[in-house]
């Protein structure tokens, strides 16, 4: 019994179909400079070390006797368990904040403690030297990785890249113009923006904890109806650059709009708090900006809860937002 299927955009457009031109268009980083890495090197390594900690710690908690046996130390279940607990906690902390070097330096500390314990065990009578040496080598190897990773995270201010796309049922040139005209409205979900002549825009963003950061942005390149890029001027607390690309969508679907954003957090103390805010937020901000842009372009309005009545005693005007 053939059920009449409703066509999806993908059936209509015949995706996935890759033409020669598509490969060029879809290559990561095209239109920008260089390649984009989704999870940059040290962060990936940090995550791997985080999982290693969790796995190792879980084993030390669950079967401390077997771990001691494997390593060559004498059985001391409470000690191994406590090491395991620390290991799991460190691992979880690393996984939650893989950009942060402090937990990785914590791993290094733990490695040194482990090495010291192995050293003590080696001095004891009747120790199993071969196992201990192997264990020490393993710990030493991991410690080296930990140091490497921590150093890189501390030193480098790894940039954060996000790319988001959306398809809007309007022509590219119309969207190119609308993006600039309505930028303050589109970005209202996270920052107060105003544009001035000479291709500059001024941004003020509220951070949690009642801080505000402000910066200015300058248009770098324009190809009307196709592409626009910008970067923050000197003195911005977080250096950033971005671009927006408009390319025809298949069939009558309109235009594919791609927003690329890069953030370069500074080193040092400020980095921690800024990174905590920015680690997950840029993707959401970019996605939401595109959604708001699409609604404005297709319907002339952005969906809103302004004036939405409720039984809450607080402000009667509510804007839909990121926090509940």
């Amino acid at each position: 019994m053939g059920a009449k299927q409703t066509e999806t955009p993908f059936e209509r457009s015949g995706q996935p179909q890759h033409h020669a031109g598509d490969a060029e268009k879809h290559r990561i980083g095209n239109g920008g400079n260089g390649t984009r890495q989704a999870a940059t090197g040290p962060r990936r390594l940090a995550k791997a070390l985080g999982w290693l900690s969790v796995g190792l710690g879980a084993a030390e908690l669950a079967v401390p006797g077997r771990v001691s046996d494997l390593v060559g130390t004498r059985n001391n279940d409470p000690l191994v368990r406590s090491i395991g607990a620390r290991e799991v906690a460190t691992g979880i902390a690393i996984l939650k904040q893989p950009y942060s070097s402090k937990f990785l330096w914590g791993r290094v500390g733990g490695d040194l403690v482990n090495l010291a314990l192995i050293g003590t065990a080696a001095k004891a009578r009747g120790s199993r030297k071969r196992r201990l040496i192997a264990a020490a080598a393993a710990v030493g190897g991991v410690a080296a990785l930990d140091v490497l990773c921590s150093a890189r995270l501390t030193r480098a201010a790894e940039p954060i890249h996000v790319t988001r796309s959306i398809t809007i049922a309007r022509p590219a040139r119309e969207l190119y113009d609308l993006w600039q005209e309505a930028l303050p409205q589109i970005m209202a979900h996270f920052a107060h923006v105003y544009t001035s002549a000479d291709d500059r825009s001024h941004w003020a963003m509220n951070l949690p904890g009642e801080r505000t950061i402000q910066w200015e942005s300058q248009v770098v390149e324009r190809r009307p109806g196709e592409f626009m890029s910008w970067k923050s001027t000197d003195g911005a607390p977080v250096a950033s650059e971005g671009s927006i690309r408009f390319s025809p969508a298949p069939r009558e679907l309109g235009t594919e709009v791609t927003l690329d954003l890069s953030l370069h957090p500074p080193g040092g103390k400020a980095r921690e708090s800024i990174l905590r805010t920015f680690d997950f937020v840029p993707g959401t901000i970019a996605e939401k900006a595109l959604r708001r842009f699409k609604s404005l372009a297709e319907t002339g309005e952005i969906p809103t809860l302004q004036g939405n009545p409720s039984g809450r005693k607080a402000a009667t005007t509510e804007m839909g937002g990121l926090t509940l």
Partner: protein
Amino acid sequence: MRALCWEGVNDLRVQTVPDPVIVNPRDAIVKVTASTTCGSDLHFIEGYVPTMRAGDIIGHEFMGEILEVGREVKKVKKGDRVVVPPSICCGNCWYCKHDLWSLCDNTNPNPELQEPLLGYPTAGTYGYTHAFGGYAGGHAQFVRVPHADNDCFKVPEGLRDEQVLFFSDAAPTGFMGAEFCNIHPGDIVAVWGCGGVGLMAQQGARLLGADRVIAIDRLPERLQLAKDRAGAEIIDYTQTDSVVETLKEMTGGRGPDSCIDAVGMDSHGTGVTHAYDRARQALHLHTDHGEALREAIMACRKGGTLSILGVYELMDKFPIGTIMNKGLTVRSAHQHGQKYVPRLLDCATRGELDPSYLATHTFTLEQAPRAYEMFRNKRDGMVRAVIRPN
């Protein structure tokens, strides 16, 4: 104005709240003449669906009179009597244009709340959590209706409120569910659930040409309605060892051609899997109850169609292998009201469909918390409570 607000799990209170106002030029303000309770409300009232905030005005199935329109509203005007479906739809995105109204791209101000579970945002909905937009709902004296030209359907003369109110949600949902079954002459359609949606699905199946409709529930008064109104054969699942076996016997061993789930996540089962669901719920490890849906998957004939109207989030022990090995077609959606309401209004005008029997009890807005308490516990033979806020 007065409105029914959710103040916490199982805590509904009528509060005095600000009146809604025109915000965008395509908005209208509707003065609500009647609204009704829906089974899917119970999911968030009981705390199973996240992103409610204390103070949210609830209610997603309503009708009323246009009080005020924005300057770009062309198709309706002040004084028009209209019925409004729960999904807020722009009419301009790909989904609206292809009759997939509840998937509208442009009416959810909180898309980031849906992306973790759905990957994409869907249409905003009145009175149904902030993941679905957080819009104030219809159990209130007034409602702001965005995109009024799309979402307000004029009620023809000569139809009473109770004949039309259920065209907001219960009837289009049921009708869509029946349409999903791709019914051919001679087909047998089994429907789990004899609440508002289930009964409408049964009547819809009949209107679309099903030969036999089999209705499954446990409440005698609802099974009686299925018999009387939809000409359904009935199964009381508390009186049989196995609904699946009973359905097989009733269909010559073949199984029904299509199965409609109009129960959803509050499913009450009697078997081991139900006990498992309840235990997990008690331990706050719950995922949705799936008794009715699992039965439907088992009972459906090979190569048949499963039409899922019940509202769910995540389900444990879901027999995806059974679906695959039996070659079932699965169709599901939140109802695309804007597609069905005009047809249903036509059916009503021609006397082919009159859902007013669903309106078993009527309440004022101030009595609404009690209405929900009775609705939730299915007291006094209640099928749907109608609330009259003005």
